[in-house]
């Protein structure tokens, strides 16, 4: 048994069959949006990057853009470039084309401006949509699925109801041979020893310790007197006493299995099972990194309530409490608050597993229905 998905030429499997229009640089965003307005059935990704950054950021942006194009939920890709930018559109094309999927490029300066580029882009996108429609869903093994885990807009129940429930689902996925990606390095502070102990090898354990140490140094450097923001007075009022306690409540959503790998932001894990990705705790940056790392579905727990979704990847929203589930029902897919009313973690996790299976097979999440399509590419340095 497995799920029903779209098999790509490289053997990876999409749970969606999107044609994506992607800017290589922020200067091309207007044309990407124009194509999206003309053809609402395509997905568009615009962003603020692609030029005017130092080498570390150019590398990060390039890896993220290539990853977003390579995500198996994307059937075909059209990249809109400007022409004089640092991250060249043809470079992204060549990297994504290695997956075997159709990839096209248009540069605005070559085509003679916005209107001509958008008009040609619409023609190309229509052709790509027709090609994509020829791919039908087939049964695939769970080992083809990679699921990203996220929490945001957390409340005092996030670590009590929703995250333990998602942790049980992560264990279920790993047991089936799938990949579960635990991100948000900011939220791992204080848990270096717990995570390192669960690493598949001592070397990986050392890398995890170093990652979390580096994160602590970064926060000291950039946040100064605000470095303790990771455990705020609001967290304390909510009953959390120590940073480790707060972080345990976050990492529990990764479940209890062995950690098989640690990958950089937006990198695709090569190992299955539970994998860590180095992302910030800030939600949209983290979702973007995991989508670029090939996650086909993401599970997102929230207590305060956030509507966030992603253009090409279905995001399943888990409410930590019944009041939120009722109040923001248009945005919430499943209610972990049922644990408070007496259901066991195992029961609600089984409901989530069922939902995950249906979403993999094509059922739209609330974020997809609402067209919640936010993208933010991580940067580490200034713009020049």
């Amino acid at each position, binding site marked *: 048994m497995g799920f029903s998905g779209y098999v790509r030429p490289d053997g990876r499997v999409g749970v969606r069959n999107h044609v994506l229009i992607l800017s290589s640089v922020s200067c091309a965003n207007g044309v990407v949006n124009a194509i999206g307005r003309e053809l609402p059935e395509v997905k568009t990704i615009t962003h603020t990057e692609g030029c005017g950054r130092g080498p570390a950021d150019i590398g990060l942006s390039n890896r993220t853009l290539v990853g977003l194009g390579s995500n198996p939920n994307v059937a075909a890709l059209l990249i809109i470039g400007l022409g004089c930018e640092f991250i060249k559109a043809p470079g992204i094309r060549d990297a994504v084309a290695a997956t075997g999927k159709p990839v096209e490029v248009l540069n605005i300066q070559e085509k003679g401006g916005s209107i001509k580029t958008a008009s040609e882009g619409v023609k190309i996108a229509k052709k790509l949509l027709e090609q994509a429609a020829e791919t039908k869903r087939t049964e695939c093994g769970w080992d083809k699925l990679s699921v990203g885990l996220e929490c945001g807009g957390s*409340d*005092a*129940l996030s*670590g*009590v*109801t929703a995250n*333990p429930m998602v942790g049980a689902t992560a264990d279920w996925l790993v047991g089936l041979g799938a990949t579960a990606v635990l991100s948000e390095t900011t939220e791992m502070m*204080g*848990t270096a020893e*717990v995570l390192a102990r669960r690493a598949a090898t001592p070397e990986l354990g050392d890398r995890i310790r170093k990652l979390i140490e580096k994160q602590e140094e970064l926060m000291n450097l950039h946040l100064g007197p605000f470095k303790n923001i990771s455990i705020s007075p609001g967290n*304390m009022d*909510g*009953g959390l*006493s*120590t*940073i*480790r*306690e707060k972080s*345990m*409540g976050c990492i*529990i959503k990764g479940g209890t299995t062995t950690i098989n790998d640690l990958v950089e932001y937006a990198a695709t894990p090569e190992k299955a099972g539970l994998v860590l990705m180095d992302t910030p705790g800030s939600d949209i940056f983290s979702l973007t990194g995991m989508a670029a790392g090939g996650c086909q579905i993401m599970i997102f727990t929230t207590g305060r309530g956030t509507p966030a979704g992603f253009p090409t990847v279905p995001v399943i929203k888990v409410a930590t409490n019944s009041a939120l589930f009722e109040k923001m029902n248009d945005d919430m897919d499943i209610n972990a608050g049922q*644990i*408070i*009313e*007496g259901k066991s973690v195992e029961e609600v996790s089984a409901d989530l597993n069922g939902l995950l299976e249906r979403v993999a097979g094509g059922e739209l999440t609330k974020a997809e229905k609402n067209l919640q399509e936010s993208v933010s590419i991580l940067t580490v340095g200034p713009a020049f």
Partner: protein
Amino acid sequence: MNRNVIIIHPDDNVAVAVREIAAGEHVEGVEGKNIKANSDIPQSHKVAIAEIEDGGTIIKYGEPVGVSKGIISPGDWVHTHNINTEEG
């Protein structure tokens, strides 16, 4: 069933109040133990479900999350007043 606490991991020596528990109220859902709250426990805060010695480990998620300041008895509210937060 409408419980008033959740024990996240079987090794934990604290439970989490899922609603406010008044002083003297029974802490429901701890098998084989008759524990009453020794003070008001705010919602989502921790209540001890075992005796914890001075300098003992607070265990939640099956992992140490802090070190106690003073002896903590079953039914005690557990927070920054009786956890050494520097150790966390």
